[in-house]
């Protein structure tokens, strides 16, 4: 048999494959899978439920009621003059997007161990599908926020007070998605070896919400505490939301730059770690 030049082969796998061998081109080939997985998440979610997609509204609505009662009425925490329902709702939907992304992505290896162990496809498809299906859910919940805002306009209690930052909304969503994806991938990669991290994320995410300006405005804080809360990128996202929609909130160019840097960094770090781990996680999980 004649010797084959290396150009003959479509793929040469050596035991030392580079850290940057991400095979992103292949990811494009699997775009249909990505779409179908997102679809599956939705269809499977409301099959055999009486209320179906309405559940997407129920969760943020009831959480908002509870927060109005606990933080607004009992604790009397300021909302910067923004009507309480829209103040809490905007924080809740943004935070639950981020938290769902991180928690679901962090379980990606464990939950899909069966599939990953039997079929090859670019593993990145899985976390991407989680981020995208949550994005759709977030979009639906954003409609709820808009509906509430319109309701306030109709009853004459104007809540809508848009600023130029409303234009940044798509970017804020993008950053939020990228950070959720990157962070989740880092966590999921560590979880394959040390399951402890998975447990940690499970209880830390709800607590982390209090280190984000969901139930209080950033302006109510000062000094070191404020800086500490600002390290959390979700604070900037939520403040940006409120500034854009309601004209109140502490958001400026610095926050935007911080978000850009932070999201690019977590995305790159997450992708590289995830890519390294996906190669032999089948043997360790």
């Amino acid at each position: 048999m004649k010797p084959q030049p290396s150009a003959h082969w479509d793929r040469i796998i050596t035991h030392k494959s580079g850290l940057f061998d991400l095979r992103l081109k292949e990811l494009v080939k699997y775009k249909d899978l990505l779409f179908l997985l997102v679809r599956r998440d939705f269809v499977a979610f409301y099959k055999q439920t009486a209320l179906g997609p309405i559940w997407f509204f129920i969760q943020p609505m009831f959480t908002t009621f509870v927060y109005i009662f606990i933080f607004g009425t009992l604790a009397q925490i300021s909302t910067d003059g923004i009507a309480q329902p829209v103040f809490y709702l905007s924080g809740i939907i943004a935070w639950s997007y981020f938290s769902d992304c991180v928690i679901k992505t962090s379980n990606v290896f464990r939950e899909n161990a069966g599939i990953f162990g039997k079929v090859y496809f670019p593993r990145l498809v899985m976390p991407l599908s989680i981020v995208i299906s949550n994005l759709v859910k977030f979009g639906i919940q954003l409609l709820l926020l808009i509906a509430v805002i319109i309701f306030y306009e109709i009853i004459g209690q104007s809540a809508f007070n848009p600023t130029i930052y409303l234009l940044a909304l798509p970017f804020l969503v993008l950053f939020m998605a990228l950070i959720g994806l990157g962070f989740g991938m880092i966590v999921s990669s560590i979880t394959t070896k040390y399951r402890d991290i998975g447990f940690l994320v499970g209880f830390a995410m709800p607590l982390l919400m209090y280190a984000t300006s969901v139930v209080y405005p950033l302006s109510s804080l000062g000094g070191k505490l404020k800086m500490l809360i600002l390290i959390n990128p979700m604070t900037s996202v939520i403040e940006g939301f409120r500034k854009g929609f309601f004209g109140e909130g502490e958001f400026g160019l610095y926050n935007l730059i911080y978000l850009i840097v932070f999201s690019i960094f977590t995305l790159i770090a997450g992708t590289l770690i995830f890519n390294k781990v996906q190669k032999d996680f089948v043997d360790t999980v």
Partner: protein
Amino acid sequence: MSDLVIKVESLSKAYQLGEFSTGTISNDLKRWWAIKRGKEDPFLSVVEENDRSKVGVSNMVWSLRDLDFQIAQGESVGIIGRNGAGKSTLLKILSQITYHTQGTVKLKGRIASLLEVGTGFHPELSGRENIYLNGAILGMSKVEIKAKFDEIVAFSGVERYIDTPVKRYSSGMYVRLAFAVAAHLESEILIVDEVLAVGDAEFQKKCLGKMNDLGRSSGRTIIFVSHNMTAIKALCNNGIYLKNGQLVSQGQIDSVISDYLSSNRAIADANGVISSEQRISGTGEARFLKILTYSQTPKEIKTEFYFGERFLIEFDMKVSKDIEDVFIGLHLFNVYGEKIAMDMPDKSYRPQGVKKGIQRFTIDFREVLMPGDYFFGLSMSHFYSGSDIDFVENIANFKILRDSFNDELNYPWPTIHGYTQVDSVWNSYTII
């Protein structure tokens, strides 16, 4: 035509056994530090040969060791070997599910691997939705699936239920649908693990036929792992025989199978002592110690008998404590490892009690077997729970010789006469 599609060079894979969590941080740090200083990975230097019957000193084993082989386009290759020989690991590396530790794998063309049917099926989704999802997981585009959709449904034979959630499917329907999707994959290389062990006989035949079509007509390369030598023989023209992670032989499927079978025979001990290598499973409450075959008169140890000759089987077992509900079975296998018959002390399928101590059983074996090579397996299990007390295979290999009236050397006994002679009485008379 003889273009290479797979080339494997000095492929090795090390596995870590046992617990991962304890001490992993410190081991990881040690390892990282050694590699950092340019030294060899300290944990790879103590890797051992993968012989599961021996207790090793290190918890790293070579699941595959220095494999070299190549596969040309259109070949259908059967990979054979005992459990734990590294067959599945090899398939997983070729299908890129896991990565190797050393060596190179070169691939050409699209690879579809079928290590399991129905991977990614979601119980809540309908058959239709699952065809799309499963197809996409296997690497098909939506357009491709759409083009083959009707064919897939027709092959699976579940047309009526196509819009029903698959959780309402019977397991047979589920498997049919899953295999149908996989069978319609467009790929140059198809990797199949024993998925044919599922479904009913009729469907298995359909699957084998389909795979045969794929290989023969479309020039596709097939890599097939199975313990069923008949299926391998029917499907493959070449073979690779792995033992303890190493390549023992490769080439024409017939010669590879006979290498495999003769090495199985070699396990048998002249004194009939059963080794741990022959042990499949067991709780250890009792163990089979040895098994021998004897001629009737005079009673002598023999492993070759003439056609029609009655012989004796004698086996000993050590019982550590009295057991009330033992079900003992003697299993007869043909040369390909397919079970031909099962025998038991009480033909009415009732359990028996065994007392503590070493027990000896003698069997007057009266079944008339056709010439060929055979071996036995022994099992004892708890009758009610079904759990194995001890289960050994590949024991007491023996041969039935042709008798004097038929000296033809290559007479295909099994295909013409089957394996046993039927015990019956025939009568005939003219009715009109």
